């Protein structure tokens, strides 16, 4: 068995696409072999540079991803892309449609695109995403792009993961009050107002610039606000320039190390929650007593706090 894991590890390292794809599925499904493989991966692999792309649905994340990758490919940089779309809370299924906007790079042998469903994680990032980052890194991909689900406010897990986070928005995304609200706007290292041909695009750039200008202090990263048109491939070189600048900034200020430790911490919390859920919460949900307690609480004979004590803490 362990011989098989060694063989799989070596094949991934060689860049064998079938094996990389299989390994990602194993991680997603949480198989026993996946744990054995990841044990070895965590102890041997340094993660490649991670770029997160976040923003509301339809803002152009996938199209921009394709454009950035096309630029990198001119320098023969190999790229792994993780494109995340939401799992339906009702059916458990998912429609993964990010590839539609990435057809121009779909057959490039220096690019590996993997679509992923969130599978129930709330922040849009589940533990298999960082594991996939490591698998891509092992396979020799120089840069990893993580494209999040079209997020709303407050889903900021991506910041804990990526080294550089790009927040993409569009001119129609709302007035300045929307932007002032806490949440995602605070988390971008680079802001992009896409679809620059639309009305009010410059106004949106100004709004975000004002917001960002509140960040003060020596050695503090001041996020740039860029204007792009991904379809027409305008402004993409600027994004690349700023990714490099941010990378240099992190290195010069010894922040890369700190950010990588934060990733491990976030992954630990993620995995602990998953483990507790599997071990303690799921069995309770399957227990017939659980439904009875729901009835009792409904009938006002019990309260949730006491019931939880009885179910989990006794």
């Amino acid at each position, binding site marked *: 068995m362990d011989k098989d894991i060694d063989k799989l590890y070596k094949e991934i390292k060689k860049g064998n696409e*079938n094996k990389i794809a299989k390994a990602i599925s194993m991680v997603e*499904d949480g198989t026993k072999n996946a744990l054995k493989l990841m044990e070895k991966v965590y102890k041997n692999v340094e993660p490649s540079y991670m770029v997160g792309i976040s923003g509301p649905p339809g803002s152009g994340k996938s199209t921009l991803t394709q454009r950035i990758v096309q630029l990198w490919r001119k320098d023969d940089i190999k790229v792994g892309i993780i494109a995340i779309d939401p799992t339906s809370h009702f059916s458990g299924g*998912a429609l993964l449609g990010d590839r539609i906007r990435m057809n121009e790079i779909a057959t490039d042998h220096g690019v*590996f695109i993997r679509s992923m469903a969130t*599978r129930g994680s709330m922040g849009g990032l589940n533990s298999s995403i960082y594991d996939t980052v490591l698998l891509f890194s092992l396979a020799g991909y120089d840069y990893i792009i993580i494209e999040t689900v079209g997020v709303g406010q407050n889903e900021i897990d991506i910041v804990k993961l990526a080294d550089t986070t790009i927040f993409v928005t569009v001119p129609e995304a709302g007035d300045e009050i929307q932007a002032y609200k806490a949440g995602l706007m605070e988390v971008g290292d680079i802001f992009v107002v896409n679809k620059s041909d639309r009305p009010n695009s410059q106004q949106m750039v100004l709004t975000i610039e004002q917001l960002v200008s509140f960040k003060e202090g020596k050695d503090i990263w001041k996020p740039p606000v860029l204007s792009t048109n991904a379809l027409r491939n305008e402004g993409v070189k600027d994004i690349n320039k700023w990714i490099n600048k941010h990378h240099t900034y992190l290195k010069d200020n010894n922040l890369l190390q700190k950010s990588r430790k934060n990733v491990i911490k976030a992954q630990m919390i993620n995995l602990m929650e998953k483990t507790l859920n599997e071990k303690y919460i799921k069995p309770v949900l399957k227990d017939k007593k659980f439904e009875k307690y729901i009835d009792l609480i409904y009938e006002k004979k019990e309260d949730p706090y006491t019931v939880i004590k009885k179910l989990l803490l006794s």
Partner: protein
Amino acid sequence: MEKKIKVLIAKPGLDGHDRGAKVIARGLKEAGMEVVYTGLRQTPEQIVRSAVQEDVDVIGLSILSGAHTYLFPEIMKRLKDANRDDIAVIAGGIIPEDDHTELKELGIKAVFQPGTPISDIVDFIKNEVN
């Protein structure tokens, strides 16, 4: 976590009719599957590469252009070359019954005609994968 069925819905060749493909994609999603949809006008190379990278269990080819006897053999050949001929391939769209035998001989597991209830396709896939 339990194993999810993953399906690639692809439209090979120069054929702009994607309503059927989108209905199937939605139907399979509602049935709890993870569905990758790659959009219109895919080459056999794109389809097979996507199937490999996504590690799908099933490929559903939707075609209404009449080019199935030309495009499907190329897709099946490329799947074999990629060592992934274990992936089940099914087809749908406008495919004359006269061609069904030829396609089955190629290794296509099923050809669904217009009007097929989505639940039939769901059942077929579930059976095929398990």
